[in-house]
């Protein structure tokens, strides 16, 4: 595995500006699995009356943790791109509480990686959202392409 704890911290605190802006932190890392946390922030509220986080924030957390979980199974770092991402919103996030994002890259081929993920507060059996995502893996060293392959 190429990705270590320091790599992940560097990515979420500096290399990915939007993720750094959200204050995302590392919880756990193992081959195939990654867990990140997102602190509650009033700037990220979707419903000002209830104070619940916007669904877009959960989308971003799950896209990030799912994409980075792919790096934990690759032998070398290659550029990846989200092909598709499906999110089921299971219950609203509780205002004031951090959200954990967990992803498992359970299968990858030469071209595509498949991931599922969950967002929850502290109990993975009581999730806020579920996601299924697939990622295209680029050839090592090739410049990222603007047009789809």
């Amino acid at each position, binding site marked *: 595995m190429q990705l270590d704890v320091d790599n992940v911290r560097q990515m979420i605190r500096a290399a990915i*500006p*939007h993720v750094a802006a959200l204050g995302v932190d590392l919880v756990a890392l193992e081959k195939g699995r990654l867990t990140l946390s997102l602190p509650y922030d009033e700037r990220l509220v979707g419903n000002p009356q209830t104070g619940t986080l*916007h669904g877009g924030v959960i*989308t971003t957390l799950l896209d*990030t943790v799912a994409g980075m979980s792919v790096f934990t199974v690759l032998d070398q770092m290659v550029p990846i*791109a*989200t092909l598709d991402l*499906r999110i089921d919103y299971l219950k*609203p996030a509780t205002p004031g509480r951090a959200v954990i994002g967990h992803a498992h890259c359970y299968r990858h081929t030469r071209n595509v990686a498949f991931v599922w993920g969950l967002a929850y507060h502290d109990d993975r059996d009581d999730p806020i959202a579920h996601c299924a995502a697939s990622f295209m893996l680029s050839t090592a060293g090739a410049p990222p392409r603007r047009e789809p392959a």
Partner: protein
Amino acid sequence: MAEPMDFLEQLKQARTSGEPDRIMQAIPYSRFIGVRAIVGADGAALCELPFADHIVGNPTLPAIHGGVIGALLESAAILALLQEVDVTQVPKTINITVDYLLSGRGQATYAQGRIFRQGRRVATVRAEAWQDDRDKPIAAANAHFLLV
């Protein structure tokens, strides 16, 4: 900020006022990523997301974070719903599926939703996001919303 108004009431006013951006600006997260609601030449509302450093996912390209593109599509879908449906509850997203077609480059991105089917309890909305050419979408989404 003015006296906080009931959020559902704000949604309804945004629909009838012809100023759809009022609802966007009432949502903290929309202000955070910088998305605005504008009215297109055909009179229909759409979302505009100006480029900004804090929405970047890949600084080398640079490319907008995929999560932000997803959030933009979800916002456009909700905007379409609020324009056409007299909601009695704030619509709840049941699920959203996003296809990423091209990377979102360092320029303004637009998104518009259209209601595919509206039932009594559920609305199915499709949304597309594009940058300079509407015929070359960078992402598309299909989303279901609970209306009750």
